[in-house]
């Protein structure tokens, strides 16, 4: 069964304190792994899509990496505006469908 597990559940960082969020996944065949950011009271906002092990993508202070079992979202020198819940999702090519399986997210709080 497809599964996505994110850790930690919550993370508090000081401004400028770099860290990483983890997304472990189990699928028969990965079509894509997706990162989204969700602010309170809003819908998720797309960040990255990763397709194969070894791939990396960057956007401002965020960098996403992918292995065959997990993905990391690295946050370099975070700012308070990076505070949000970060969601990871996968699509399993073997499922024959295009549904997304989401993890429960990591709630990030960056303190000034």
């Amino acid at each position, binding site marked *: 069964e497809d599964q*996505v597990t*994110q850790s930690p559940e919550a993370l508090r960082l000081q401004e400028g304190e770099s860290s990483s969020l983890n997304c472990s996944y189990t699928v028969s065949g990965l*079509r*894509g792994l*997706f990162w*989204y950011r969700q602010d309170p*009271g*809003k*819908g*998720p*906002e*797309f960040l990255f*899509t990763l*397709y194969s092990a070894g791939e990396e993508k960057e956007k401002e202070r965020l960098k996403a990496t992918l292995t065959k079992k997990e993905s990391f979202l690295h946050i370099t020198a975070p700012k308070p505006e990076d505070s949000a819940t970060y*969601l990871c*999702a996968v*699509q399993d090519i073997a499922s024959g*469908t*295009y*549904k*997304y*399986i*989401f*993890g*429960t*997210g990591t709630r990030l709080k960056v303190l000034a």
Partner: protein
Amino acid sequence: GAGVSQSPSNKVTEKGKDVELRCDPISGHTALYWYRQSLGQGLEFLIYFQGNSAPDKSGLPSDRFSAERTGGSVSTLTIQRTQQEDSAVYLCASSQMTGTYEQYFGPGTRLTVT
């Protein structure tokens, strides 16, 4: 341009009543997804539509839940005989097509069943 819109933004209903939630996707997007997000939980897939193909209903939790998409645009999620456990935020997303295209989410409808 306009993003995905959902209405109502909040809905309070009594147990046993039926509710309809509406989603207006981005114009031209052929794929439309519905999700449910309970407090502190991730997004639970409910159903997706892709063009004129039969929808994937595999995530609907019971036969009280149904959805339709008229004219390949607006979608309505209907919950019949609502139960307290149906209380959640219902999110809609659209994308150019199914596959690994970026999903654009609406702001959600917060449903409270009393």
